[in-house]
């Protein structure tokens, strides 16, 4: 085995070069580069954690804003509903008043028409009496030759009409 056969010849050289290499690695890499790389990794991890917490905060704020928007929308909707209801009820009231007014006007007109009708009827009845009395006088004069006064004829016609 060369490792044993050559031991006394090579161990000093082996140890010298090994110590040299290890010292260089330890000082330059182990103490120089490794802590810097560790710091880079730690900084990155910190930054990721900070970013995550910030994002979490932003999400909470967004949730809150959304909730507020939802509440505001609800308020607006209920306000709109009450406005519509009010408008509806006032419109109904207006219609009612208009209807009542129109009803009253129509009623008045009907009453006036009825009154004029009744007047026309009484007038017609009166003219009928006079026509009938005239006719009765003519009939009496022709039949019996007796001249009946207008008053007599009128009262007889009236009595007949009242009976008949």
């Amino acid at each position, binding site marked *: 085995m060369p490792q044993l056969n050559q031991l006394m010849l*090579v161990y000093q*050289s*082996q140890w010298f070069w090994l110590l040299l290499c*290890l010292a260089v690695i*330890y000082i330059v*890499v182990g103490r120089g*580069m490794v802590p810097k790389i560790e710091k880079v990794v730690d900084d*990155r991890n910190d930054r990721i954690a900070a970013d995550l917490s910030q994002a979490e905060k932003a999400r909470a704020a967004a949730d809150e804003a959304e909730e507020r928007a939802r509440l505001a929308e609800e308020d607006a909707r209920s306000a709109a509903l009450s406005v519509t209801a009010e408008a509806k009820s006032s419109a109904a009231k207006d219609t009612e008043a208009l209807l009542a007014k129109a009803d009253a006007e129509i009623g008045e007109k009907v009453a006036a028409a009825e009154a004029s009708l009744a007047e026309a009827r009484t007038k017609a009845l009166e003219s009928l009496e006079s026509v009938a009395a005239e006719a009765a006088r003519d009939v009496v004069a022709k039949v019996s030759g007796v001249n009946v006064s207008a008053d007599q004829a009128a009262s007889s016609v009236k009595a007949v009409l009242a009976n008949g």
Partner: protein
Amino acid sequence: MAAEAGKIDPMHQFQIDAVGGGALDGTPFVFTNSALWMLVVLSAIFLFMWGGMKRELVPGRWQAAVESFVEFVSGMTLSSIGSEGRKYTPWIFTIFIFIIFSNFMGMMPLAIIPGLHPFTVTSQFTITGLMAIMSFSIVLIVGFWKHGFHFFTLFLPHGTPAPLMPLIFLVELISFLVRPFSLALRLFVAMIAGHILLEVFGNFIVNGLNSGSALGYGVSLISFVFIVGVNALELLVCAIQAYVFALLASLYINDAVNLH
């Protein structure tokens, strides 16, 4: 192959030679193929880490790879040592990245370039041993620094009956002292065994093809299928052994820091 054609020498790949053909003379500054591969590993580590230093907020693929590598090691030290683990992350990271890159660089198919032989640094127990000793020294230094002689209570679990105390103390002490050896040998043995296996079956393929007989071709084919699986397994072992070394080192440091 140092030996004549057809002879399998799976240990040759662990041979250390001076780069440029000089003799090994036992001094510290000889530049060997092992030292060369340590520098190759070092360059690969620098290249890899450099790609992760862009420090962008949204990482690219390379930066993400480096960051997950760093996160993996710092997570390991933090979970096994606790809040004080951050102090030991540089050392655990150093041995982890050095071992895993050494293991992988030793597995790279660079031998297809003539004259180039990848060398697995972690298959040398001089290397794994020194790393284990250094990790174990950290355990001892931190343990005695923080707890003084109280550190010896590590060897006496809570609720040990008084008559058993000497025996338990001895057993725990031995198991404690064996730790650096097991740490070093585990990685060394895993690497050397895998590379011997790959070398032997790779030679089977070549020798089978050279034999020119139907039997030789059959052996080559079977060896090829087998070696593909072993290669995949070895890549897994490369990562697992680096992880095990770093995890055990951090667990041992945890003993010293927190005393059970």
